């Protein structure tokens, strides 16, 4: 149609996605988290694929809806948000800068795993987000959300949470 409507670019979509926060970690966006695995625009429709952090993450429906709402605002005729089962989310997918934001938020960022294998040693090299001491210990591998573990810092004598490396 000769309507003169400007085409919506992929950059605009990524920019819109920057407005979608992870409801359990409000300082990070779905882009920071590395959850978006694809943006495909055809004509005036877009398909966005995303990979959930944990299989049973209860926030997934909220996140899908928020992605839909934000991207729809750009003016697409149709927006589809699909779950990508082929790309495995790991904490290594977090974007540069995301880990700093996490630490400022008071949540120790996950260590880089590079591969699947998680060792006890990796779990024990965690820096306290409050005083930055590495003299910390794992109290429980399970915390207030599926993606968090509870740790304790011997230096500042405070408990803190860590984003689990997976």
């Amino acid at each position: 149609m000769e309507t003169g409507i400007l085409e919506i670019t992929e950059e605009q979509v990524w920019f819109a996605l920057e407005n979608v926060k992870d409801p359990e970690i409000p300082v990070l966006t779905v882009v920071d988290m590395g959850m978006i695995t694809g943006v495909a625009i055809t004509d005036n429709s877009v398909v966005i694929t995303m990979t959930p952090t944990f299989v049973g993450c209860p926030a997934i429906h909220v996140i899908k809806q928020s992605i839909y709402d934000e991207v729809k605002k750009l003016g697409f005729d149709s927006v589809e948000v699909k779950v990508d089962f082929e790309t495995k989310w790991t904490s290594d997918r977090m974007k540069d800068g995301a880990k700093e934001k996490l630490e400022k938020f008071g949540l120790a960022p996950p260590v880089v795993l590079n591969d699947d294998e998680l060792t006890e040693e990796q779990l024990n090299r965690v820096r306290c987000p409050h005083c930055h001491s590495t003299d910390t210990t794992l109290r429980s591998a399970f915390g207030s959300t599926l993606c968090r573990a509870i740790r304790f810092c011997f230096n500042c004598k405070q408990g803190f949470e860590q984003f689990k490396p997976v």
Partner: protein
Amino acid sequence: MSNALKNLLYKMADDALVIGHRNSEWTGIGPMLEEDLAFSSMAQDKIGHAQALYSILNTLFGEADPDTLAFKRQEKDLKSCQFVELPIGEYDFSIVRQFLFDHAELLRYDMLTQSSFQPLAQLAKKVKGEIKYHVMHGDTFVKQLGNGSEESKARMQSALNYAWPYALGIFEKDETDAELISEGVFAGEDELKTRWLQKVTPVIEAAGLKVPATDETKIVYGGRKGFHSEYLKPMLEEMTEVTRTDIDAEW
């Protein structure tokens, strides 16, 4: 082939659903806050795994949607092993069950990462990373309590003795096993059982406990064929209580 695959997906999903519900029964009554959180988190993970498996059944095999499969099937249609349906009992039993069951889960998913059935291989890679934390949790507490006081040691040993014949029931085979092996879908229950014994034995020993003797005649089979203990039905009734108040409600 599709029947063998469906059977595998159902038994895995039903195991996850039932143990997930049982784990959730610790919510609010855990012996300490961390354990309350641990069992609640593991419950959430398991229900997520069940949902993912039911979704494969739904989208690739034309079975009903995940909610229907989870909440609207009869007891006899569930393929879960009897081990997962046992009541949570006291904490010693729950931790022993969690330890024994999750070692089997981790190994099963690990084997499935090599599966010729891609959707399951992909899911397995993801789920493995989560179950590692469950296994770590089980190992930690089994060792701490096994090496704890006289009382904790005695309780752990008796829980282990009680759980053992049920745990071996996880590896109940049926006529589809050979097909899954020959098609490269899954290396089979016997192989899984061998690997499982190799993993749990050193942890039990490090905990200062004895690996119970295996009496082949006492292994609790039946769950995979839909024969369950008296504990599953009341559990399902509780689990589906809200759904049944208005069976056609839209959620």
